[in-house]
């Protein structure tokens, strides 16, 4: 009987191994327990583009808050810190380099994030999902005692430019089924945006922790006349400069001629 018993153990073991991915997938399903789509997936920036909005719809686990981040790629930025000279005059002084901070970050939620639990910074919690949480991935050179203040100023500068925002009230919920609720978010897209690759990240937040998250890519493309112009300006810059000058001269002459014919004396 012993060999049979061993065979049974092997069989159970084998079945267990085969079922492991299924159970582990169920166990790891929490971070991906969100479904959503974003429309449009491509933002067409034509001559009359003046900002737009993205509509994200999907589901999050019941009892959680859907927080969406429309975020751009991280880039290197060289800046100057302003300081006083002779204790009197404000000037651009020290050079600073910011790395790892996105060129755009629009956060959308139904409620004010500062009212929710789990404000401490860290990528795993709500704190890491706010504008202040961007500090986790930031690298500021030189890294000195004033770096924290420099980060705060950076956020303020980007907020003034309309590229960093925490918007409240643009996420609405509807009842769903099987422990999930539906959401619909209208994400504002600023006019001051560069073409390129962006991401809409969705996080389901409960008790200050991210219990599920997911993301969708969004592309911003120049089309029509702006695409033509940008292609010329970056592809054949000398020709572009000469053409810009010639058209400016001709326009100036034409307007001059119009005025001469109207105001002859």
């Amino acid at each position, binding site marked *: 009987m012993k060999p049979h018993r061993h065979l049974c153990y092997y069989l159970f073991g084998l079945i267990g191994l085969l079922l492991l991915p299924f159970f582990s997938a169920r166990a790891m399903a929490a971070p991906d327990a969100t479904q959503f789509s974003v429309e449009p997936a491509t933002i067409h920036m034509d001559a009359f583009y*003046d900002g737009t909005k993205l509509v994200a719809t999907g589901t999050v686990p019941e009892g959680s808050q859907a927080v969406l981040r429309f975020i751009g790629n991280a880039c290197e930025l060289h800046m*100057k810190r302003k300081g006083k000279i002779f204790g009197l005059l404000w000037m651009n002084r020290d050079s600073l380099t910011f790395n790892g901070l996105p060129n755009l970050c629009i956060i959308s939620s139904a409620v004010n994030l500062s009212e929710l639990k789990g404000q401490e910074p860290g990528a795993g919690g709500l704190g890491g999902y706010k504008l202040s949480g961007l500090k986790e991935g930031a690298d500021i050179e030189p890294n000195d005692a004033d770096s924290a203040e420099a980060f705060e100023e950076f956020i303020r500068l980007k907020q003034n430019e309309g590229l960093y925002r925490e918007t409240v009230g643009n996420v609405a919920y509807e009842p769903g089924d099987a422990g999930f609720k539906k959401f619909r978010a209208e994400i504002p897209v600023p006019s001051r945006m560069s073409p390129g690759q962006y991401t809409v990240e969705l996080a389901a937040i409960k008790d200050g922790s991210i219990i599920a998250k997911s993301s969708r890519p969004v592309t911003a493309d120049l089309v029509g006349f702006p695409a033509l112009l940008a292609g010329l300006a970056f592809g054949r*810059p*000398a020709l572009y*400069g000469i053409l810009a*000058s010639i058209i*400016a001269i001709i326009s*100036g002459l034409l307007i001059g001629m119009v005025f001469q014919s109207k105001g002859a004396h």
Partner: protein
Amino acid sequence: MGFPFHLYLPIAGNSVNIIAIMGLGGVVGLLSGIFGVGGGFLMTPLLIMMGIPPTVAAASDSNQIVGASTSGALAHFRLGNVDVKMGLLLLVGGVLGGTVGVQIIAILRRLGNADFLINITYVLMLGIIGGYMFVESLQSMRKTSVEAPAAAGKEKEKESVYARFMKSLPWQMEFKRSGVNISMLVPLFFGVVVGILSAIMGVGGGFIMVPIMVYMLRMPMHVVVGTSLFQILFTCLNVTIMQAWQNHTVDFILALLLLIGSSIGAQLGAKIGKKLKGDQLKILLASLVLIVMVKMLYQLLARPDVLLAYVGGH
């Protein structure tokens, strides 16, 4: 569907209100036509306030000044207000001075003092030029109304010292339009001075060139305005092509919108300028320069809203 009032600018990377940009161009063009200044020292800060990146604002402004100064210079040329010979000499000096100025800035940037020098030069130049012009034109207006003959005598006396020095210089030339006989070295020298200052300050230099033509070259005010626009046209042509080529910062759509407004403004300005007396023109320009100086001084003294700035703008 209504008229789309916004246009997306691919180089500036932002959308702008067409009416606001054309209106801004119109106001600055009007001043350009009246005073013969390019208006860069006014237009660039206003564009930055409207959300245009500083480098794009300055380069696109140069592009629009090409059109506006063509329009303005043409209007003044027809009125006989352009001294081409004087303008060319100032231009040659300006190009030489500009090259020297760029090198000075490069050295100072390495030493870390460039921003300080730029800001201080701005405030000092604007303050000295604006203050001197204001006081001088005010005195001149009083003199002409109260003691015209005595003042004329004094002016002659003053001029004789200055004239003696000028006559002692080699390569004397007659500038018919301006009605002066001076050495060609004089406009060349002042061209170099303005070229250095405008390279340091990052502007066309019209608001420095105009007072120099009036007080140092003793040119009549109406010829000064036309000749200044003529010289600015070529300076900004060079800047536009170089900025587009090297830095990709010329937004042609932005420039065209500004140009439509500013060309119309420049034409109106030239007509208004013709109706104003020389002293009135000088006192108005002096007031404008002093207002900009006070604004810049305030910016230096007041705590900025954000204590960070992008590299490239000042």
